[in-house]
Each structure stands twice: as C-alpha cells, then as structure tokens.
C-alpha cells in the first residue's frame, strides 16, 4: 500500500488562549478527494491554512510528500523549518480561496503565468501557452487579457483555480470556494472542480457547505466538530446513514437551511 501524501500527527493549534485543534491526527492518501465538513468554527479553514503554511502550528508534526512540513533536520537534530524549507515544501501545495485573491493589477493571463515564470523559471512563451490551455479548460480563453475587476465572481474563481493549477501542485486545497458567489454562478465553478476531481490524480481537500457537491466530489468525508474528527467515511454512508448524533444534527440543520444533500 502506498504511503500517505499528507499526515497530521497530533496537531495542536491555538490562537492566544483559544485552542482550535487539540491532538488532531489523520492521513490522506495520494489522489484522494477529501471533503471536510462541519459547523462554523470547527477548524476546517485552519486545517487548510496550516497546510498552506499561512498559519503556524502550536504542536505536533505534519508530513507532506514524505517530508516534514514544519520541521527539518539540522546537524542530526530536529529544528523548526526555516523560510527556505517552507518555500521548498510549498511547491507541493496549491490553494484556492473563498475570496479569490487574484492580483488586481495583473490581467487574467498574467495572474496565471506570474508564479510559473518567477518560481520555476519557465520561459514566458511556454508559461503563456500553458496558461491559455488552463484558461481554455476553465472556459475563459476569451478573457486572457481582461483585468480581474472586469470579471464576475464565478469567472474570478475559475481564474484562481487556473492560477493554482499552473504550478502543478500534487495537493490542492479548496476553502469554501463558492460561498462568496451569487447562487447562479456556483454551478460553473463546481463543474470545473468536478472535472478536475474526475480527470486528475491530484490529492484534493475541499472545505464546503455544499453537501450535494461534497457527495459527488469526495472519496471520503470528514465531519469535524470543535477541532475533532467526529465521524468519517465514504460520502454515501456519511450523508445517508451517519452514525454519530452530532453529524445527524448538523446535516439536518444544513437541509433545513435549504442546502441540497
């Protein structure tokens, strides 16, 4: 059996006196599509941000692609990772944000090619060719020269997905990527993500309140509450016959709030 591509080992995370994660451990296998669900404040975003190195951990170990993320070896001793180590590890990971975070001063194509050119030394012509192919895949080839401010939310988010893909990470993180969108724009973004999930062997972690999409997208669903995995399993089981009472309550509330399952 293959080694996990991500391994959380006894992770603790506090913000000041508030402990959000306390001894969290789980593994993700290469190519797995994982959905993280749970009530607001349960720590889902924090988990993705820790993986993207946007947030430091307070304790524990994380392994990504067989290497420690927040630790490194120095003279035979384990020390906290420095910026160079983090830089090396980030190559494996890409992230799409709830609010897109496009670079507003760069056109769509430049948003996508900036990092490949700067961080991988890709020649511009090649980066642009690949960028155009990615734009084509997300259905925005005609917007290559548009500025982000000229796009709809759904279009922005599709550009953000293309930007993350341009670096060819092995792991992709999606944090509520449709929750800032008007309802009629959600579908176009989900369609792109569904295709990615079906057609690539990238490992994907998806945080979402769209239970219907989580059901279609994921191989495995993790239900979180207050930083702990309460229940996990294949979507068919979690969504149709959750065993834990808190999962049942959560799903009932979500349905009552009008989300599809």
């Amino acid at each position: 059996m293959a080694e996990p591509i991500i391994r959380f080992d006894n992770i603790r995370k506090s913000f000041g006196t508030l402990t959000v994660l306390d001894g969290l451990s789980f593994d993700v296998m290469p190519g797995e599509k994982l959905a993280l669900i749970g009530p607001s404040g349960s720590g889902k975003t924090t988990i993705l941000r820790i993986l993207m190195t946007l947030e430091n951990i307070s304790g524990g170990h994380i392994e990504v692609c067989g290497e420690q993320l927040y630790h490194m070896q120095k003279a035979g001793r384990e020390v906290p990772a420095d910026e160079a180590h983090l830089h090396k590890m980030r190559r494996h990971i890409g992230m799409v944000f709830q609010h897109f975070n496009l670079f507003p001063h760069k056109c769509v194509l430049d948003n996508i090619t900036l990092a490949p050119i700067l961080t991988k030394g890709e020649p511009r012509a090649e980066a642009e060719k690949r960028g155009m192919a990615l734009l084509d895949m997300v259905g925005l080839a005609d917007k290559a020269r548009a500025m982000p401010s000229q796009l709809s939310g759904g279009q922005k988010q599709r550009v953000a997905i293309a930007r993350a893909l341009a670096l060819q990470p092995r792991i992709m993180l999606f944090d509520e990527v449709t929750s800032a969108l008007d309802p009629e724009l959600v579908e176009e973004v989900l369609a792109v993500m569904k295709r990615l999930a079906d057609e690539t062997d990238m490992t994907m972690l998806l945080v979402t309140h769209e239970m219907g999409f989580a059901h279609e997208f994921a191989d495995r669903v993790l239900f979180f509450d207050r930083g702990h995995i309460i229940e996990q399993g294949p979507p068919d089981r979690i969504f149709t016959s959750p065993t834990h009472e808190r999962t049942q309550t959560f799903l009932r509330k979500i349905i009552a709030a009008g989300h599809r399952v």
Partner: protein
Amino acid sequence: MGDWSGYIGLILQGALVTAKLTVMGTALALVMAFTAGLARLAPFAPLRWLARAYVEFFRGTSIFVQLFWVYFVLPFAGVSLSPLQAGVMALGLNVGAYGAEVVRGAVLSVPRDQYEACIAVNLSRFQRMRHVILPQALPLMLPTFCNNAIELLKGTAVVSLISLSDMTFQAQVVRAQTGSTLIPFATILVLYFAMSLLIAGGMRWLERRVTRGLDGVRP
C-alpha cells in the same frame, strides 16, 4: 531701473540652484523613503530598529538644525561637503524620513489576502514585494509623495543659511542692492508657484500611469 534684466538674471540663476536642490533632494528622499520604509517592515529586527531611529531622528529635529550639522559639524568628522551637497543631503534625509512612513503605511494597507495569495503561489519575499505588493502600494503613496516633494521645494530656502545662492538668497541680494522688496519677492513667488505646479502636474501624470491597470483597463 534699467538694470532689472540683470537682477532678474540673478534670480533665475538662483531658480536653477533651487531646481537642482529640489530634483536631487527628491531623488535622495525617494531612495531613503523606500530603503527605510521597507527596512521598517523587514523580518530582521536590527534593521527595523535602525530604520525606526532614522525616521524618528529626522522627523523629530528641524531641517534647520540638520543642515547646520551636515555643513558645519560633519567636517570635524572628516566629511566636507559643498554647500549644494550639504543642502541635498539635509533635505533628502529629512523628507525621506517622512516618505519612509508613507511607504510603510501604503505597503501595510495592501490587504492580507494579497500576501496569502503570494504564499499560496510560492513567491519569495522579494518577488512578493516587487511584483504584487509594491505595484498596488505605489498608487497610494503618490499623492503624499507629491505633498512631500512640494514641501521639499519650499524647504530649499533654508540652504541660503549656508550661503548657497538659491532663489530666496538671490532675491535678498537683489533687494539689498535695489532697495525694492516687491519686485524680487513677487518674482520668486511666481517662480516657486510655477515649480510646485510642475511637480503636481508630473505627479498626476505618474498617478494616471500607475493606476491605469487597476481601473480595469490593461496597461
């Protein structure tokens, strides 16, 4: 009368000195503003302290005193500057300290989202600053930079104290020689005003250039 063309010529010579001081002083101020402004945000603490000390010192003491130090005291430390060099240095360092705060403020006002996007696409610290943060911070700095440059222009008059014949100095000379106050001082009033209009116009042009991309039209 009669000799007025000669006297106006004197004032114009002074205007040239003032213009030189302004251009060179602004150039030095810009360099200092970016150096100290970015150093104040550096991850390395001693660099931040050094920049902080520079800013506090030059904002907290008057340009008048700074000029005297640069011109009359530095020679004791073995650094002798010409009056023009001393003037440029005092003005540039003084205005640069204000500019550093402008740079720092503008950089800090770029939303956190943008830093996080840079980390997610794995840009280095330098690339982040150069390609994402500064291009967005620059349009925020320009209006204040414009004020600073005009302040610097007006500040150039203090260099007459170290016997540099700038525009104000020459106006005094003409006044002493002709006994007329109105004509020389009306002339330099118009000239100072024209120069500051020139600075403001140049800044507006720059502003249009650097914000063009942000308005939704590709540069």
